[in-house]
């Protein structure tokens, strides 16, 4: 077993553990923090996968922006208390069962998977670098890129629509 494997395994285990803690910790803020940790660990995985830019973006966008937003809302709504009602035990059992079976069947499906021949993992395999991605994004995928801006506008309009306090309600 090579070093890399060990690193990968440990990293994987940590990621999973951290992810589990997100779900299992009962305090919302703690969940958020575990999630941020998970994001960091995933970023580490990205680096391991030679997707350096992705790793950075992941931290910036998720851990930096999205999770802060979550925390913000959590604080705003004053929900940072450990008073979340527990799911019913039936639900818990069913959920664990479903999740367990899901993993098992997915892994079972993977059992006899055949893969396309891997790409030449040449030394110059550096598509994960920012210039390559930028190249792709602004030439080949410029249309989806533009379309995603539509998505953002829509989301923005929607968010404004929903969050704005109605005058009538205030009155």
């Amino acid at each position, binding site marked *: 077993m090579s070093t890399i494997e060990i690193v990968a395994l440990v990293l994987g285990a940590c990621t999973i553990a951290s992810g589990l803690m997100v779900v299992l910790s009962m305090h919302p803020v703690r969940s958020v923090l575990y999630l941020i940790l998970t994001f960091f660990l995933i970023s580490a995985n990205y680096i391991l996968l030679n997707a350096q830019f992705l790793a950075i973006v992941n931290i910036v966008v998720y851990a930096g922006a999205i999770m802060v937003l979550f925390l913000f809302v959590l604080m705003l709504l004053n929900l940072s208390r450990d008073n979340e009602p527990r799911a019913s035990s039936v*639900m818990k059992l*069913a959920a664990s069962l*479903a*999740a367990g*079976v*899901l993993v098992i*069947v997915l892994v*079972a*499906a993977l059992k006899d998977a055949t893969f396309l021949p891997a790409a030449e993992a040449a030394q110059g395999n550096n598509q994960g670098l920012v210039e390559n991605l930028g190249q792709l994004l602004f030439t080949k995928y410029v249309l989806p890129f533009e379309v995603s801006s539509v998505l953002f506008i829509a989301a923005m309009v929607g968010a404004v629509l929903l969050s704005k306090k109605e005058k009538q309600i205030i009155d």
Partner: protein
Amino acid sequence: MSVEQLLPLVLLLPLIGGFVNGVFGNKLPKTVIGSIATLLVAASFFLALSIFFQLDKAVEVKLFTIISLEGLNLDAKLLADNLSIWMTLIITGIGSLIHLFSMGYMSHDPGYRKFFTYLNLFIFSMLILVLGSNYFMLFFGWEGVGICSYLLIGFHYSDAQKGFLNGIAARKAFIMNRVGDLGLLIGLFLLLKQFGTLEYSEIAAIATADDFVNPTWMLFGITMCLFIGATGKSAQIPLFTWLPDAMAGPTPVSALIHAATMVTAGIFLTVRSNYLFELAPDTKTVMLYIGLATSLVAAFIALRQNDIKKVLAYSTVSQLGLLFVALGLGAYTAAMFHVTTHAFFKALLFLGSGSVIHAMSDEQDIRKMGGLKKYIPTTHWTFLIGTLAITGFPLLSGFYSKDEILGYAFAESIPLYLVLMFSVLLTAIYMFRMYFLVFHGEFRGSEEQKHHLHESPANMTVPLIILAVLSVFGGVLNLPGLFLHDQAHYMTHLFEHNVAGMDLIHMEHLPSSTILVLMAVAVISCLAVLLVSYQVYVKKRSLPKEDAQLTGWEKVSANKLYIDEIYNALFVRPVEWLSEKGYRFFEVAILNGIVFGIAKGFETTGEVVKKWQSGQVNWYVLWMISGIVGLIIYYLVKI
């Protein structure tokens, strides 16, 4: 005019009468209505008479095609031969007399116009029955007379007390007839299957051809079916109980339909099909014994009936039984002879009874009568003649016709003869009982009735007199060869084409002495009964017991052998039970239950499925996950 022209006219005249009276009658005075009806039937009679004398061979007149299909050709076609014209004469002849009688009898009835309309329509139907040249036409008439009979039995439907029962009697008559009709209809189908046609002439040609191979079972089936039809119309066991009930109708109707004409349709049918019956001896045997049984049973019941018309009705049934015995013996001409004489004296008796009832202000119970001979002499004398004729009093018409049949029976077997003789004896007993109770002794009715007693008007007595004359002299139509060789067997010769090819007159093989002995036996027995009855009812003045006091055989007789009750228990009740329970427990509970159960099932399922939609979003997600897991398991299983 030729026969071809006259024949449709004979048929049409009564129809025209019915139509005119039915449509325009409400604007006409009563006398005109009655006259139209009577005159048209009489005209029909005279036309038939002229045909009768012109006729030398059978004539067929095609009117139009009813149904023409591949392999099925049914024409509206008339046939004039001696048999059909003979029947026509009886129908129109007696019919016109009864019409005449009705003009008086029904004069106070509000349904006067309706009555004559129905009566004319009946004549029309009956003429179709006898004049049609095929079984299909016969069936038309067969059912038509049934309908008219239904209408006329239930004629007084709005009567406050008896209206409802009249209706029931009418319905019973029609339904029982229908049972027979179904048999006849199936007989028709069988005929079509066997012969491919319903024309009498064609069937006769095939059946009497030399190379005809007798399909025994088929012919047995055909003739049995025809016979079932005949039992319905001619009131034989097991379908005879409607006839006594049919007396609910006005008395002229009983005379015309339920004595003289319609009930003899079965006889006519059998005689028409005699060549078929000859090929099916088993049916003849059945017919013989059914006829015998009917004759006995009806005579037995008649012994203790107190309704004047009921007695006559059972007498009719009994006589019809006798006729079927004759037919069973193959004595077709004798049967026709008796049909004729029976038409005379039974019509006479019924009309006479009508006259009595008329005089008694619609009283029919003979216990309330008595001593009427001095109040209504004409009726009395004619009634006496009728009674004597039916009991076979010597030299009256009934004597000849009955004796002929008895002779055939004797020729067949002596026990048969004895049983038949017994039945004849019973006839004499109940007829004389009735006669004496009605016309002799003290008047037993109410004062009011006594006050109203009067002889009927002329238009009622004239038909009585004519019929009495016919009853007396009707015997000459077919005198036995014993007396006058030249004029004897007029009817036998008349019908020899209709019943040709069969060995019929085996009575002729009986030695003259035997015949004389038989006649003597008949005469003696008749006279003996007359004397005994006279002793009992006139001298001893014994009266019928009250219903409650009856015991033993008398009770059984008075209650008509409980046959109505038995039929009720056997057929009516089960069907009604089935109808009610079937509706409640099968239709509603099961069939409807299934339909609504299915609907209910869907609704319940809907209710259950609705619960699935719990409103909890976690569960929704869980189900989605289950779906995905299911899909992937599907993959794992499939690959």
